[in-house]
């Protein structure tokens, strides 16, 4: 048994779950994933009347992927770029359409999983600096960073440092040389470290609510280095076969959330600490053009 399977196995034992005819929705361990999981869960409840069980805040891509391939959860929201490089281990690609086509085909073939239509936003890596520094040194694009990098300190999460589409490729693409090797730390702590001046540049996510709350600025990826990270529901084909109405309910969410809208929803959760279920309910009930 792999470590991931063991974790899922133990989690299942702890939950003492017996699966009846209900849809189990998972999410990863950050607010956006919880929010999208909750939106999907409520959408299924409202449109199909099927009971939904929530298994939220699972430990990242790794745990969610093991959970869905072993049938412990039926669907969760994944990002195309993450599936492409972290799960399928393909070299980084930059074209959104081809990445989406590749993950759709490979997930169906290898795992019996179906990709729904994307929600509409792109949560890619966001090279982020303090607004004060951006104004002072005239930084708007990542290319501008090369001028100051030799005097600056970077702090990055493990995923960004480790992934093929993360720091190493970025440093090559933009010729970035920092004063010291980047400090490896927890992603959530990098925002705090940046705001407190302990590091000067971090790699956040473009839809994070913290960006505006902490008065930070995202530098434009002018050389289009970062792959697309479109969020979409991933669901077991067996569940879609048994309940085609679930697929219909999910399709109604396609293209409904822009980058700015996702940032707003994340800020409600992370900055204003509103209840996830409440945010999702309000969003689903809001009138739409």
């Amino acid at each position, binding site marked *: 048994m792999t470590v991931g399977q063991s974790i899922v196995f133990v989690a299942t034992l702890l939950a003492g779950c017996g699966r009846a005819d209900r849809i189990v929705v998972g999410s990863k361990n950050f607010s956006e994933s919880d929010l999208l999981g909750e939106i999907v869960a409520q959408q299924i409840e409202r449109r199909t009347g099927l009971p939904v069980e929530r298994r939220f805040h699972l430990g990242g891509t790794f745990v969610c992927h093991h959970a869905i391939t072993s049938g412990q959860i039926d669907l969760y929201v994944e990002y195309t770029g993450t599936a492409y490089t972290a799960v399928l281990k393909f070299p980084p690609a930059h074209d959104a359409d081809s990445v989406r086509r590749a993950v759709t085909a490979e997930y169906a073939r290898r795992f019996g999983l179906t990709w729904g239509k994307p929600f509409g936003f792109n949560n890619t890596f966001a090279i982020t600096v303090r607004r004060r520094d951006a104004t002072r040194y005239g930084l708007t694009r990542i290319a501008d960073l090369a001028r100051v990098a030799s005097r600056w300190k970077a702090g990055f999460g493990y995923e960004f440092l480790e*992934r093929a589409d993360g720091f190493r490729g970025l440093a090559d693409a933009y010729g970035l040389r920092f004063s010291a090797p980047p400090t490896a730390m927890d992603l959530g702590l990098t925002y705090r470290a940046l705001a407190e001046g302990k590091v000067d540049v971090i790699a956040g996510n473009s839809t994070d609510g913290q960006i505006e709350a902490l008065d930070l600025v995202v530098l434009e990826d002018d050389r289009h280095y970062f792959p697309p990270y479109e969020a979409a529901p991933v669901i077991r084909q067996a569940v879609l076969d048994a309940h085609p109405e679930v697929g219909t309910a999910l399709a109604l969410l396609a293209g409904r959330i822009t980058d700015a809208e996702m940032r707003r929803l994340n800020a409600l959760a992370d900055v204003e600490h509103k209840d996830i279920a409440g945010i999702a309910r309000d969003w689903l009930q809001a009138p739409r053009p």
Partner: protein
Amino acid sequence: MSLLAFYARNAQEVLGLVAQHLYLVAVSTLLAFALGIPLGIVLTRRPAWQRPVLGLANVFQTVPSLALFGFLIPLPFIGGIGASTAIVALVLYALLPIVRNTYTGIAGVDPAVREAGRGMGMTDWQLLTQVELPLGFGVILAGVRVATVVSVGTATIAAAIGAGGLGVYIFRGVAVVDDTLILAGALPAALMALAADGLLGLAERRLAWRGK
């Protein structure tokens, strides 16, 4: 890729991380002993402090490490990012078993023995060093043992604040969906914890035997 092949290819890095891990554990547990044992002794002299101090040590145990790091980052001297912050957190986590067992070990000394010491004209210092500490030693060492073993495991969280250690492999492995990487960090940490427990257990038995 198998674990052995991974170690063979990254021997240098593995040894570096093991050394970092040992450093974090050694510094933080020694600091925790230096703070916790005197604190436990003070509590036996000032019973009124017992509840607030042990209560506070209990609270530190329950604060999740990432939250604790979040609070520590803005602090001058002890905060920021890197080894010092990780060590502060590890010391706070290690304090409870040491303080509690020091207090319990001394408080558990038979009052008749203590009275006999006083009757012989011992000062408080003599009473402490010649009667209470030797008699309470087994319980105190048990606390030290728990604190050390727990620290070896807890030190993996140092990787979240840029302080390195074996947690680096665990965090990287979780980030990129790689079982081998996770095991590469978890296995040596587990072995280290077992070794620390075994050595301190041996010391405990030796000293207990000599005590008789």
